[in-house]
């Protein structure tokens, strides 16, 4: 009895168990396959909602003569883009965007790198200094713009006043193109240098310390160590900082918009009219021009993609060269 009952039990079990194993294994297979996607899906759902949809919808509006209030539009094809390409102000805005970007991004990253290097050395009250460089970042950009535009006033500004002490004639900050753009780049740098310095600092701290020790034993000086160890080791962080600075730098709006409170933003001769300010002017201060503003927005998007790709190609090339040299 006992022996005969024995085979039946496994038989019954084997009858049920394959199904159970199959289900749980299927579950775990799903788990393995699907859950990573599930975990990252909030980002993509949000991105689709606030990134992709506006992008596509803006592209759609760029093909219409669109009334933003009544949400009605008539299809005009690529007329808006044609119009934009014919505008003198668009090309000036494009030029200004690129020059202000260069005037801000390049010094910003160089200075941020220097600050990060100093913060990485043995300082007393480390946290204090690190928080200190981040301070400008938490100031509202609008407040920064208002304060700096007072500092850079042509007649009553502090900067011209200080320059007069060292015998430099007053600079026309609101008239001449390059000084105006330098003033705006200064605001941008004031805000972003500390932020970038902290990100670079984080990258520097991840560099293995024994590399430095070996180098100093080999007799490498401070600068040699910085250029031969820190910079190459920092490359991934630098690429990140450069790309975010590019995206941000091409979209600056608050600073040029508030640089002068008189009239349409951008200066009497469009000295500091950037693409974002131009699209704002076209969209809000010209009747029914949302379609044209959307066209400008898309062109700006394409410009950022283009410059991002150039960035990527250049940095990749450099890193390949470096690899070949080190190997």
């Amino acid at each position, binding site marked *: 009895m006992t022996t005969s009952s024995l085979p039946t039990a496994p038989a019954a079990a084997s009858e049920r168990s394959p199904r159970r194993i199959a289900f749980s294994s299927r579950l775990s297979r799903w788990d393995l396959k699907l859950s990573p996607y599930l975990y990252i899906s909030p980002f993509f759902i949000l991105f689709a909602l606030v990134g992709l949809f506006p992008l596509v919808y803006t592209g759609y509006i760029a093909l219409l003569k669109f009334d*933003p*209030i*009544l*949400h009605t539009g008539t299809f005009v094809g690529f007329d808006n883009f044609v119009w934009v390409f014919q*505008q*003198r*102000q668009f090309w000036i805005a494009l030029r200004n965007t690129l020059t202000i970007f260069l005037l801000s991004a390049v010094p910003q990253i160089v200075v941020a790198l220097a600050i990060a290097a100093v913060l990485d050395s043995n300082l007393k009250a480390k946290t204090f200094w690190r928080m200190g460089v981040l301070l400008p970042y938490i100031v509202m950009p609008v407040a920064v713009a208002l304060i700096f*535009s*007072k500092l850079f*006033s*042509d*007649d*009553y*500004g502090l900067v011209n006043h200080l320059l007069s002490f060292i015998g430099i004639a007053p600079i*026309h900050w*609101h*008239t001449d193109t390059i000084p105006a753009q330098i003033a705006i780049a200064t605001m941008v740098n004031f805000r972003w240098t500390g932020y970038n310095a902290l990100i670079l600092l984080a990258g520097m701290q991840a560099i293995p310390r024994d590399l430095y020790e070996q180098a100093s034993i080999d007799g490498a000086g401070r600068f040699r160590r910085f250029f031969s160890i820190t910079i190459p080791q920092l490359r991934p962080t630098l690429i990140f900082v450069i790309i975010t600075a590019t995206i941000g730098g091409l979209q600056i709006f608050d600073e040029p918009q508030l640089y*002068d*409170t*008189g*009239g*349409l933003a951008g*200066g*009497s*001769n469009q000295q500091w009219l950037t693409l974002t300010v131009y699209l704002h002017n076209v969209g*809000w*201060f*010209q*009747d029914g021009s949302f379609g044209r503003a959307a066209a400008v927005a898309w062109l700006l998007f394409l410009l950022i993609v283009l410059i991002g790709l150039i960035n990527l190609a250049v940095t990749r090339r450099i890193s390949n060269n470096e690899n070949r040299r080190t190997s």
Partner: protein
Amino acid sequence: MNLSRRTRVGAVLATAATIALIATGCSAGGSSSGDQKVTLTLATFNNFGYTDALLASYHKAHPNITIVQKVAKTSDDAQTNLFTKLAAGNGLSDIEAVDGDWMPKVRQYPQLFTDLASADNKGRYAAYKTAGGTAGTKLIGLGTDVGPEAICYRADLFKAAGLPSDPAAVSKLLTGDWSNYYKVGAQFEAAKTGAAWFDSAGATFQGLANQYKNFFEKDDGTTVATTNPDVKSAFDSVLAASATQSAHLQEWTDDWAGGMAGGKFATMLCPPWMMGVIQGDSPKVTDWNIANAFPNGGGNWGGSYLLVPTQGKHAAEAKAFVDWLTAPDQQISAFKTAGNFPSQLAAYKSSALTGATNAFFSNAPIGTLFTDRAKAFADTGVIPFKGIKYGAIMGAVQNGLTRVEQGQQSAADSWTQVVSDIKALS
């Protein structure tokens, strides 16, 4: 400059973006059975002169209604806010203030605003003010203030130049046309006081632009700015005078404010709301005064409206409140607070208005003075037409004037660029 007139008054107010009037006590149980508790939001910009006390007095008379005022810093901010939220379909206040210069853009959408016409407010305003608030057959905006222009001047600089400095004599001196204004300016400049005659070509051009019926646009909205000989001759005549008589300080800039305090110019065109701007920018100057005169008679610069968007839930209550807020007594109260000159005809007869003086402007009798200026404007019989592109065209012209004053371009080159900028607006 048009788009951002009055920008400066609000600088201090900017920090206090929202002024909330809290119903004190919140007495339990409404006084009458059908009355619901209603909170009305009122959005204004800069300084409309609607003090907490004024708004509280409405709550006192109507205990079930509480008013909360939101103050935007500039006219531009208010404009962006209004159009963004009109586009979104919600988020607007129950009552929205609209600047007369961008009212034409709002008038394109009468279906989005409540009709405010009633037997009560019929014939309360001069015809042009009513027309400005009317879209099609609908009265969508009730006028708050108007901007009859006078000339503000610095008595000390006049004295230094050997010109008469008391208001009666200055008024006589400045009565005449624009060439008279520039002629006195030339006398002033000849005395070499170190100050200029007026602040900027742009500000002076505003005065001229507001004296033509169809300066930039025809009644049907067609742009004529580039072909209208009046525009070109105003552009040239202002720049000719500016070469020797202007301080070259573009309006609303920090340097303009500094120049006002530092005595860089002796006169400026002065609608009543400009008094608050001047006082705010040059609080320590004791020599400001106002002349009861304006080149070519009269002119009007600025003036706003209150509108009730249909997206609000309390249209009836809002309508009654706007009616009250734009009534003569409340307009006079706002005039005393912020210098916004009443738009209602009945207010001009009130002794509270005619007796008003301004201590900062050497006790100028601003009540009677601006009543005279309003009459002078009415006498010209010219009501400037401002279409939907007015602000954008004015912006292009102002930039052109500034380019010449900054020495970047000759008047002829600048005009060529103005023409191309205006053509780009079509």
